[in-house]
């Protein structure tokens, strides 16, 4: 595992929809490198022929009838949690196109 460059950190931040200050980029480059160095030891474990375990209890699809169920909160009560303006039961966000 090579160390992460400030450029890589900025790229990851972009993918994660975060903007970082230059000081944060510096700090994260060091910290993320040390975390990746720590978890990198997993690559040494022989996992040949081992199926990945996604859910420890092996629970698979848990079906229910395809019927709309409204539990407790109404759509308007949920919309009321938004910090943005609500117009006609919809949240008004900044424009996607600037």
């Amino acid at each position, binding site marked *: 595992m090579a160390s*992460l460059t400030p450029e890589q*950190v900025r790229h*990851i*931040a972009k*993918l*994660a*929809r*975060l*903007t*970082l200050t230059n000081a*944060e980029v510096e700090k*994260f480059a060091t*910290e*993320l490198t*040390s*975390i*990746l160095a*720590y*978890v*990198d*030891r*997993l*690559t040494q*474990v022989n*996992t040949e022929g*081992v*199926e*990945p*375990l*996604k*859910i*420890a*209890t092996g*629970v698979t699809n*848990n079906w*229910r009838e395809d019927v709309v169920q409204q*539990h*407790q*909160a*109404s759509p308007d*009560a*949920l919309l*009321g*949690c*938004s*910090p*943005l303006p609500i117009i006609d039961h919809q*949240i008004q*966000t*900044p*424009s*996607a*196109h*600037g």
Partner: protein
Amino acid sequence: MDNLCSLTIAQAHEKLRKKEISSEELTQACIDRIAAVDSRLNAVVFNGAEMAMEQAKAVDAAGDFSSPLAGIPYLTKDVYCEAGVPTTACSNVLRDKTYVPPFDSTTTTRLKKAGALSLGKVNTDEFTMGASTETSCYGVTRNPWNTDCVAGGSSGGSAAAVAADECLFALGTDTGGSIRQPAGYCNCAGIRTTYGRTSRYGVMSMASSLDTIGPIGKSVEDLAIILGAIAGKDSLDATTADVPVPDYRKALTGNVKGLTIGIPKEYFVDGMNAEVEGAVREAAKVLESLGATLKEISLPHTEHATPAYYVICPSEVSSNMARYDGVRFGHTTSGAADLRSYYEEARSSGFGAEVKRRIMIGTYALSAGYFDAYYRQAQKVRALIKRDFDDVYSAGVDVILSPVSPTPAFKVGAHQDDPVAMYLEDIFLDSQVMAGIPAMSVPCGFSKDGLPIGLQIMGKQWDEATVLRAGHAYEQATEWHKQKPTL
């Protein structure tokens, strides 16, 4: 009527049932205790004294104390939604505009049905990410046994509040040790249930394939009472399984004859803290003297659990935290040029450093070209860790003993600039998470500095009953859990 708040649930229930005390008196005792000590601990982040008193009066008026939780006041980790009660995950993302959820979590609904009263919210690391509550936007919760030390985390507020008698029990969550470690640090009992044994509906997610919810209490018997009320399938959480919930209190026979207890050599290594090792080995001897058989066992993939956890957890964090985009909840900014800048500005100014770190690690681990090397490999290692436990259990072991933490509680700020050192706090607590098995923390001694030491008891998937049985028998034979801090 002093000291009512120091009662266990079982003791308080007896007094309530016989009408020796009222729920109002019991609740007032907790409210008074919070007023007296919380400024030194910083466990409570939302004080719901008024709503609790209203509920207490209603329970007293109804006069029905057939449920063991009727009229019992409790505190909830600040990630459980309760309709009309501010819930912030101790993050500026939700604190900024004070998120007030319009719905209840299944667990708080079930507790309400059982007659328990919510006293408010307690501190946690931001979105449960941490082992000390130091990442909380409300600041650190201090350990009632020594306020220079952390109470642990992420459910540090829950454990400190229980240890300081601010409530009769508290709810926590355990993704990578967040119930067991603070319970161990504060001399409480705390149980992580089998993955899917308790519903997570209405509890803010951190890492969905690992998250569990559960109680922290003053005795193993109390944990059995609470689990009896909250465990079981929930149609609102598809990961809960349709496995019958036994009567956990009936499992508390006080008898461990015939139980085989595994002592895993990987948890007792050269150079480990001698006081912790001594206390745990002594606890094993106590159980042996009660009729259990000790057996040395090996769980060879133990050392890989924490690295696997710190791949799987942040990967799932990066996905779960995507919902905090400044659109549906809480924190917002003004003047963004477009939607994308709005997301970036709202998220960057809302999240704290540890949440950002985990989002970044997870984003990297899941990004093109790295998925197989990190996330998929970690899931394979997880399969190997589970296989270790399967092998031991199928060879006749019923429960496994280990320390909860490598050391007693550390000083506030000790791991401040070293995220990996903080992650190593979980070193004995991640294997159980990977294997989806239940594990409990029980008080088993004190360091010479007067800090509590926790004993971890692990069981088979869905077999909380045997874990509780062993822990309860141990408690009956020892006095550690009865010790109280001086505040």
